[in-house]
């Protein structure tokens, strides 16, 4: 069941569009915000809320990279692997994080603290290499600064 809060927030979004289904992406983001990821049950609940078929909602959910159809950790690390960050050495940043946390791209630490994912260009190229953790942007990364940054997220 969608919570009252989720329903209210989804309703607010549907008001910006001529019909409820247009708020599908917003609804997915709202539910993900509350639950961390989008389960099959969440897809069904959103479908019924927006008067859509389950298949339609899932086709939207699986298209967008920032909708998680699998559980993720408490914190999601998004390492930019696009061109400016490649030139400026994202690969060694990735290797450092991967070694430190013993996870590769697509994996979650056993304690559920971090999920490590690649991300396309973050539009922060003059401060490359960059990454995001949850909603926070971190840039001009060095091996030392990464250690400090990770400590902030428990």
């Amino acid at each position: 069941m969608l919570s009252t809060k989720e329903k209210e927030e989804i309703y607010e979004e549907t008001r910006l569009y001529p019909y409820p289904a247009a708020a599908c992406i917003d609804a997915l983001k709202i539910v993900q915000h509350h639950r961390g990821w989008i389960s099959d049950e969440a897809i069904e609940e959103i479908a019924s809320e927006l008067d859509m078929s389950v298949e339609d909602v899932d086709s939207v959910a699986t298209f967008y990279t920032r909708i998680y159809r699998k559980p993720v950790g408490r914190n999601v690390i998004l390492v930019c692997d696009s061109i400016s960050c490649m030139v400026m050495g994202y690969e060694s940043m990735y290797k450092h994080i991967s070694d430190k946390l013993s996870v590769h791209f697509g994996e979650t630490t056993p304690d559920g603290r971090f999920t490590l994912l690649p991300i396309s260009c973050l539009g922060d190229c003059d401060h490359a290499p960059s990454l995001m953790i949850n909603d926070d942007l971190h840039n001009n990364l060095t091996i030392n600064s990464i250690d400090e940054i990770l400590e902030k997220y428990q």
Partner: protein
Amino acid sequence: METPLTEHIKENRPPLRLSDYEKVGGYRGMHKALKEMAPADIISLIKSSNLMGRGGAGFPTGLKWSLVPKDVPGGSLKYLIANADEMEPGTFKDRYLLEGNPHQLISGMIIAAYAIQARKAYIFIRWAYKKAEIIIRNAISEAYEAGYLGNNILGTGYNLDLYVHSSAGRYICGEETALINSLEGKRGLPRAKPPFPATSGLFGQPTVVNNVETLCWIPHIVENGAEWFTKLSITGEGGTKIYGVSGRVNKPGLWELPVGTTLREIIEKHAGGMKDGYRLKGVIPGGASTDFLTEAHMDTRMDFASVRTAGSRLGTGTMIILDDKTCPVAFIHNMIKFFALESCGWCTPCREGLPWVQKILESFEEGTAKTEDIGILEFQTQYMGPGNTFCAHAPGAMEPLQSGLKYFCDDFLKHIEEKHCPWRRL
């Protein structure tokens, strides 16, 4: 030198609030447009200014607006959308404008919406631009409080509502018809054109989609005129441009400079030249989907026409430097991997062709490529060229590859001859 777009942006300081922006001249263009000008006059003004879209394609803005029907049967619901879904690799200019001066964009959107008589407008903003989104939402509230949004704006009887939509990822949503599908809550697949959004766009209604930097120009042109705009540029194409440089230069960053500033001045003067120990080998001039330029093109004037003559595109005007310590094949491979990942999967050449190219480039880096692979890559650049795919995604991806094969052919061959990447030892 005038820098209209960035003069009120100061780094390490929050953006100007509405009242402070008005004290330095903000919203003057909006007052003038809504009180003194008819919608058709604004469209003619923007047409005569020759403002070309700053999102990368360079389509004339006034012409785009003029394609919107004046009278829509069954009511007059039209839409304006600001494309703030910046995701072209190597591009970071709209983030600067959004975070630095949100009221400049909002005042531009009010004028643009009034010119096409749109009653609803959206800012489609990239999910990753969290700071920008908060800033924009606050600024919109201020604009409502001031009576610049909502009903009966400035007592003119004109109504406009402005909403923010935060995206959920995918590069293709920067393509205007894919953006429209995404805003409708659907998968972000591009639409067949025609019909163009100007006649049938968001929810089937006439729609204009403009880039952030483009919309930021509107209040300034309305206030100062088309001739002023033209004179700002060196080469007559009009205006200034936010140019940016990333890669191994001394001062990566962005600068507002007259349109037509040379590539050399941007890289050597503003970006401070190459870092010690690095030599410039190539430049991607306007985001990942533009052809390489090289040392030989350093005196190219950075405007749409001159960069086209040099064999590339101005694109977003934010450049990525390929230095001599970075393998050109790996550099291109990185961009192709991005395009393969971000293909929406709708049409076969793009969905299948880009991963094919990616695998071949990977084999170069692993040292298993064969001489005939160069021919396959060359064939692919034509197979996925303009006209063979549903949208401009794959043709854009082919631009750095085709020019890379031309300028760095020896480096491709070295990978085959030496059976490994010559840069891996560095």
